[in-house]
């Protein structure tokens, strides 16, 4: 019994520490606000009603209870009790914290220089607006209640009848999936493909019209980051060259568009399309020029040099020397948009179509390259550059090609980005943006197209949607990356190379089919 008690206290203490951390950064209020949102409060206050904070306490208790009850093959009552103990212990730690907070409140000590969130209102809110002693007691009770609930939940989950029910459900799902696959992979395969593609096309045409401006803006950004991510993926994922300052090529695209198609500083007004083409070309040329001296470098050295290149571009754009030519820190405004068949593009909806087009183009080029002879050469270089050279692969040419095409993708995304926002400035092209792109392809799965889309959505889309979490974005970034690398080291959707499976029977063996254009 003694060891059992100790086993319950340990997860309780962990959750208690997590809770203390959460309170000190004000995360408990945030969760409470989210709860308020979910239950239908339109505009919750900065300190929401006590009920929602209580819900937060119970949630933390449940977490502690679940943590304590896991891996226990005991009776229902014992597991629930373990949960209760864990929750209660976390609650006592929470109570001690609140006791401390109450002292700060009563004695009017100013700690906000260090812990900015700990205002008087915040502390009162954390105590559910009650008297300190009462608040502490309620907290402990709520945590213990949550813990018991959590323990019971786990016990119920592990109980034989529920597991049997679950297994039946899983088997049913598997069977249905298999049946569905039988239908879609049978002789009707082509029909199914046509149907799904036309469905997708319909969605592409009609969804942007109904999303509204905000969603089109958010998803447009995601789409541009998909193009950018695919570009970086050609260099990093396919050919294995770790390029860090990738956003520099994006900046070159954006500034080409800005300088050629804005009233200031030159009033060139070339129009969108010529500026776009030139932006892509200039980015590609920059990729070539950067690549030439880089061809002797590998791994870390390549990463450091490209990092330097990215920073040089940003600082040049920002510097006083070039203020007269590039607008300096203020950037360039009023960049013009495209016109198709006499119809000017102004709204985010219009740009959404343009971005979808760019995305499809990038995806098409990417997948063609990946499955070509060129893609095979890149793969060989990524695996072992020396052996690739010894096998007769022109490694310099293919590495340069990867950089040039990747840079061109980035230039395309940058030019559209500048035109859509009608603005570009040096701070848009900071190191953080490069890191974002690299993170998104790693989180999504190096080298894979669905992975890139997933990663772009997770890293660029989610923060926009969860505006409240804005302050925690970097925290979430870090946590997500660490969790990702631990649980799925290959990313959400790892790259699956087309495998040329050769059947075992020699008489039916045929040469593997493969696109060949090189």
């Amino acid at each position: 019994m003694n060891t059992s008690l100790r086993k319950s206290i340990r997860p309780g203490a962990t959750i208690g520490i997590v809770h203390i951390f959460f309170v000190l950064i004000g995360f408990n209020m945030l969760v409470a606000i989210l709860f308020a949102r979910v239950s239908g409060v339109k505009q919750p206050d900065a300190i929401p009603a006590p009920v929602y904070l209580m819900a937060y306490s119970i949630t933390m208790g449940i977490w502690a209870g679940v943590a304590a009850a896991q891996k226990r093959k005991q009776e229902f009552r014992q597991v629930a009790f373990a949960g209760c103990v864990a929750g209660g212990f976390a609650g006592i730690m929470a109570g001690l914290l609140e006791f401390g907070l109450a002292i700060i409140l009563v004695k009017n000590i100013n700690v906000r220089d260090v812990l900015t969130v700990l205002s008087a209102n915040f502390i009162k809110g954390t105590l559910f607006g009650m008297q300190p002693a009462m608040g502490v007691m309620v907290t402990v009770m709520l945590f213990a209640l949550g813990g018991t609930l959590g323990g019971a939940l786990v016990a119920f989950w592990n109980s034989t009848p529920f597991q049997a029910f679950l297994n039946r459900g899983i088997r049913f799902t598997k069977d249905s999936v298999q049946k569905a696959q039988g239908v879609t992979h049978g002789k009707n395969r082509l029909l199914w493909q046509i149907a799904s593609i036309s469905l997708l096309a319909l969605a592409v045409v009609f969804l942007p019209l109904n999303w509204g401006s905000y969603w089109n803006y958010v998803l447009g950004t995601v789409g541009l980051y998909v193009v950018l991510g695919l570009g970086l993926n050609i260099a990093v994922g396919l050919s294995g060259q770790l390029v860090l300052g990738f956003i520099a090529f994006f900046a070159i695209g954006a500034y080409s568009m800005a300088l050629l198609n804005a009233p200031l500083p030159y009033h060139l007004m070339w129009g969108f399309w010529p500026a776009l083409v030139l932006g892509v070309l200039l980015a590609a040329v920059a990729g070539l020029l950067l690549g030439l001296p880089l061809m002797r470098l590998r791994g870390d050295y390549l990463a450091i040099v490209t990092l330097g290149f990215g920073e040089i571009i940003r600082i040049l754009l920002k510097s006083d020397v070039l203020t007269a030519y590039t607008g300096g820190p203020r950037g360039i405004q009023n960049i013009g948009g495209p016109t198709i068949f006499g119809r000017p593009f102004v709204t985010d909806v219009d740009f959404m179509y343009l971005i979808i087009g760019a995305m499809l183009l990038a995806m098409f080029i990417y997948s063609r390259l990946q499955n070509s002879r060129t893609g095979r050469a890149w793969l060989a270089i990524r695996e072992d550059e020396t052996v690739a050279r010894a096998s007769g692969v022109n490694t310099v040419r293919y590495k340069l090609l990867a950089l040039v095409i990747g840079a061109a993708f980035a230039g395309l995304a940058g030019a559209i980005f500048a035109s859509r926002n009608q603005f570009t400035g040096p701070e848009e092209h900071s190191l953080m943006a490069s890191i974002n792109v690299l993170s998104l392809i790693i989180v999504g799965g190096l080298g894979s197209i669905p992975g890139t889309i997933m990663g772009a959505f997770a890293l660029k889309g989610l923060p926009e949607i969860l505006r409240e979490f804005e302050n925690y974005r970097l925290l979430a970034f870090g946590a997500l990356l660490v969790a990702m690398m631990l649980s799925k080291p290959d990313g959400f959707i790892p790259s699956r190379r087309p495998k040329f499976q050769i059947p075992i029977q020699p008489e039916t063996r045929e040469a593997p089919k493969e696109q060949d254009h090189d």
Partner: protein
Amino acid sequence: MILNIENINVHYGAIQALKDVSFNLNEGEIVTLIGANGAGKSTCLNTISGILHPTSGRVTFIDEEITNTSPQDIVKKHMIQVPEGRKIFASMSVWENLEMGAYIHSDRSQIKKRIDQVFERFPRLKERRNQPGGTLSGGEQQMLAISRGLMAEPRVLLLDEPSMGLAPILVEQIFDIIREINHNGTSILLVEQNALMALSIADRGYVLDSGKVVLEGKADDLLRNPMVIKAYLGGEAIGSEL
């Protein structure tokens, strides 16, 4: 003479790795370069295959100077290197590894034929054709690395330490394979630390020490040379084996 190396000097920065090294390979021969670690054996191979370029000297391959030719062009002339340490493309399947060996050729049916020939010679590779190269055993990986070299239809095969890290029984198998490849008409330049094995299958040998050729001759003579026995064959033990 199919391959002729004349007075090559190779530098890594300020360090001179090869000093006036000359040797040659006749059509149909197995010639071995033996020597201790750091003697410059792999540097020799990398210079011949174009991965390194000498600061001076000449490399001639079938009456054509290839001193400063790029690796891919040398592969196109049907001379290919099998790098040391069983280097294969670990995540590519056995089949894909073999296709990479024929990267410079674009005739699909020809490649297919070559792969069938390789599979005939190495049934083990055929069994494992869909398996990633990295999952093969050490001996099989070396087999694959050599087969990948054969895919380029080499007239000269440059082998860098094929015995490295293999159990003695596997080393013998690999050397049997090398001998067989040679019988089928491919000239072989073999770099080895395992001097006994190398000299026992070679026609001629060169001993490299600190970037210089210190000894050369018929393999049988080298096996009996007191200096070679002392330095590379571990004393007198060799006498009983011959």
